């Protein structure tokens, strides 16, 4: 029920942010208007969610394909390289990625998408590999011995058994992406980072608070939604809780 309550809180805060104007005016009487007004919070949230969804989906899809490839007999040599690539993606600061991406891709959503996707790749790929390698040898041997083809073993045995671990990676990746996407506003992407950046640049603290509160709520709601999905998966997969 925590999920439902927080999702409701997120919706209410986003829609009725202007109603909080008296509160912000009380503490920061110099800031006008007291609530960020260049774009509405619902539209900022929507745009933010779109970038996060696209970047996370791309990162997860790439991680799944490459992680599966790296755990096949023909792809084992490729595994260490994939590990290093993912680590580089993770250690490279997103701001630096933006700085490099902007000259190539221009301002706006696209460099933000690249930075967020790169940053979200590692948690998923690490968990895809860990999940697939965590399938007990006995189970794999039995599956082979029963006459399942390698493809059937992947789809019917390995992926279902690895699903909770993979999902945990996606969950981490999405929560990171929600936070990381805010810096996209430095290069012109429209996200919940826009009021934060404007507030920092224009020395208007209420805008920073407004943006940060919505981003934080969004991240918590997404995290809880994944927890719910995880519980559902485990119950229906029969895996040990």
């Amino acid at each position, binding site marked *: 029920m925590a999920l439902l309550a927080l999702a409701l809180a997120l919706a209410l805060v986003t829609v009725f942010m202007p109603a909080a104007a008296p509160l912000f005016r009380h503490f920061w009487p110099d800031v006008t208007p007291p609530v960020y007004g260049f774009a509405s919070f619902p539209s900022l949230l929507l745009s933010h969610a779109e970038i996060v969804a696209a970047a996370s989906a791309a990162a997860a899809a790439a991680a799944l394909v490459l992680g599966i490839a790296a755990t096949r007999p023909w792809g084992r040599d490729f595994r260490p390289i994939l590990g290093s690539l993912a680590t580089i993606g993770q250690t490279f600061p997103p701001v630096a990625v933006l700085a490099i991406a902007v000259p190539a891709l221009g301002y706006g959503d696209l460099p933000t998408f690249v930075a967020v996707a790169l940053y979200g790749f590692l948690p998923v790929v690490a968990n895809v590999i860990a999940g697939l390698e965590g399938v007990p040898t006995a189970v794999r041997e039995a599956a082979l011995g029963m006459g399942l083809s390698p493809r059937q073993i992947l789809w019917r045995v390995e992926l279902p058994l690895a699903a909770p671990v993979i999902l945990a990676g996606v969950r981490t990746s999405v929560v990171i992406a929600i936070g990381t996407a805010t810096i996209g506003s430095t290069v012109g992407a429209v996200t919940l980072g826009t009021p934060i950046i404007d507030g920092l640049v224009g020395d208007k603290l209420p805008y920073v608070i407004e943006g940060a509160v919505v981003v934080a709520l969004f991240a918590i709601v997404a995290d809880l939604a994944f927890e719910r999905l995880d519980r559902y998966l485990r119950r229906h997969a*029969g895996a040990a809780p």
Partner: protein
Amino acid sequence: MIELEHAVCSHGGRRVVDDVSFAVPSGAFCALVGSSGAGKSTTLKLINRLQPLTGGTIRVGGADIAALAPEALRRRIGYVIQSIGLFPHWTVAQNIATVPRLLGWSDAKISARVAELVALMGLDPVYAGRFPRELSGGQQQRVGVARALAADPELLLMDEPFGALDPLTREALAKELAQLHRRTGKTILFVTHDIDMALELADVIAIMHQGRLVQFGAPLDILERPVSEFVRAFTGGAALGLKLLGVRRIAERVRAEPAAAGEPLEPSASLAEALSQMVVRRTDRLPVKGADGAPGGSVALSDLVR
């Protein structure tokens, strides 16, 4: 049913299976015994192509296995392993239905077969809907055997199937397996390092040592005529006499004279059991049941050593 001709399996220049030839007739229970690293599990895995054959030929049911698709071959052969390897995300019924589903059986046929196997393996029908982790080790291996039998394969390969179970469960499952073999007439190839279990269950025993087949024959034959010091030490050692008593039946030694009082023994019981009963009852003579209500006979201590 199974013929190996000069089978070889090499790994990195080492011959894990070195020129092994033997044939197991249809319906036989063959035990493949030897110490660890003797190559017995690898030999088993050559037959369902989980290990590649690097030389020689293997035929199953007359067909060269190299000419068959590995998946098609494996679906015809039941396979049971020590670590059981049930699919943890599937119920017992789904686990048992693995091969029938691969073979595209109808749902009605699959559920009838699952129910039949659950009963055959002595499992309570409520377990059909449970997940493997809810079962004890012995129950899990019963499901493992049921899964191997599901598509009614002609041949069952068992790799130390009871090795991880406690002694009581192991003994119970071994007895059930012997019954199952008698009832279904399946050809069984059973890998074990436990010579006593091999002597108890098998019609023929293949003894392997360092990748080679050292002796192949009936249990009594192997005990009485070991081909080498290794086989003698491996099969009997100091307890050879007791093991010989274990593979001989009372029926072979029964005499017509009616016996002393006491509960009569089954003629199909082993001489080891007769000796054990003599010690327990403090007597040198025991009554033996007659066949089909015929008057019984007896067996004396001196009969055991004839």
